[in-house]
């Protein structure tokens, strides 16, 4: 809706400078758990009242979930319910959801945060135990099924957890916390593996 929203954070033709994501390529593997930093993705923080959800869903090509602690995916695009009027939209195919929202007239706020977050994949049989080293939520499949998503705590940092498969999680955190979160998860994986 806002004019400024149309200005993409993703570079157009060819920037003369390179992108240097934090922790790029870092990973650790313990028996049964792998912790690895995921490639860059496009992201927006989307805020909107109930009445705008349909229009935004249509523009984004993914139905914004209305149920707490859930997410919805279509292709490489995932919308995570973070709050009653808040979604984190992640696009792993390089398509900018900010641009998709720019044309929506319905009341909303879309803010580009592609660079704000870092994603870390925690996969393997010990994945839940690894995150539970510092996250107090119940990550059993009953309480946190595949597709479940939540903002929560890991040690002293805030994270967003998305369960992408039975034994796989995507953990997002702010860039400057990524070293802490990655190190924490690595420590957790050491312990979960034994």
């Amino acid at each position, binding site marked *: 809706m806002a004019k400024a929203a149309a200005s993409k954070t993703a570079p157009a033709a060819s920037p003369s400078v390179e992108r240097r994501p934090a922790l790029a390529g870092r990973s650790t593997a313990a028996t049964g758990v792998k912790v690895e930093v995921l490639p860059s993705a496009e992201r927006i923080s989307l805020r909107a009242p109930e009445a705008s959800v349909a229009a935004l869903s249509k523009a984004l090509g993914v139905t914004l979930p209305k149920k707490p602690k859930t997410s919805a995916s279509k292709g490489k695009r995932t919308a995570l319910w*973070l709050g*009653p009027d808040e979604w984190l939209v992640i696009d792993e195919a390089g398509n900018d959801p900010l641009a998709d929202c720019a044309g929506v007239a319905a009341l909303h706020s879309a803010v580009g945060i592609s660079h704000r977050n870092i994603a870390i994949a925690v996969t393997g049989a010990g994945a839940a135990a690894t995150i539970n080293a510092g996250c107090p939520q119940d990550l059993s499949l009953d309480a946190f099924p595949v597709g479940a998503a939540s903002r*929560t*705590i890991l040690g002293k940092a805030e994270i967003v957890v998305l369960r992408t498969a039975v034994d796989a999680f995507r953990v997002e955190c702010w860039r400057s916390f990524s070293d802490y979160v990655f190190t924490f998860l690595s420590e957790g994986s050491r312990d979960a593996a034994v």
Partner: protein
Amino acid sequence: MLLIRCPYCEEERPELEFRNAGEAHIARSVNIAGETDDDFEKFFFIRSNPKGIIYERWRHMHGCARFFNAVRDTVTDKFVMTYKAGEPKPSKLPGVAK
């Protein structure tokens, strides 16, 4: 660590995700600039600090990030109930006599 039911997330979540935000149902006057010193004192400084049932604001800081209201017993430290911000003070409390 307590479990606190977030009225927006519709489930109990660990206390670490929450932050207390002081007493609830203390409305800021829409004409605050015109308030007397006494009224402003009551609004800004005076809190009830009861032994027993207290109405508090909490924020699900590291969850849905919403502020909400909670009824808690300061003697047992137990949460009696929680409800959304803007909802009226509950007239009946579950499990509380009187």
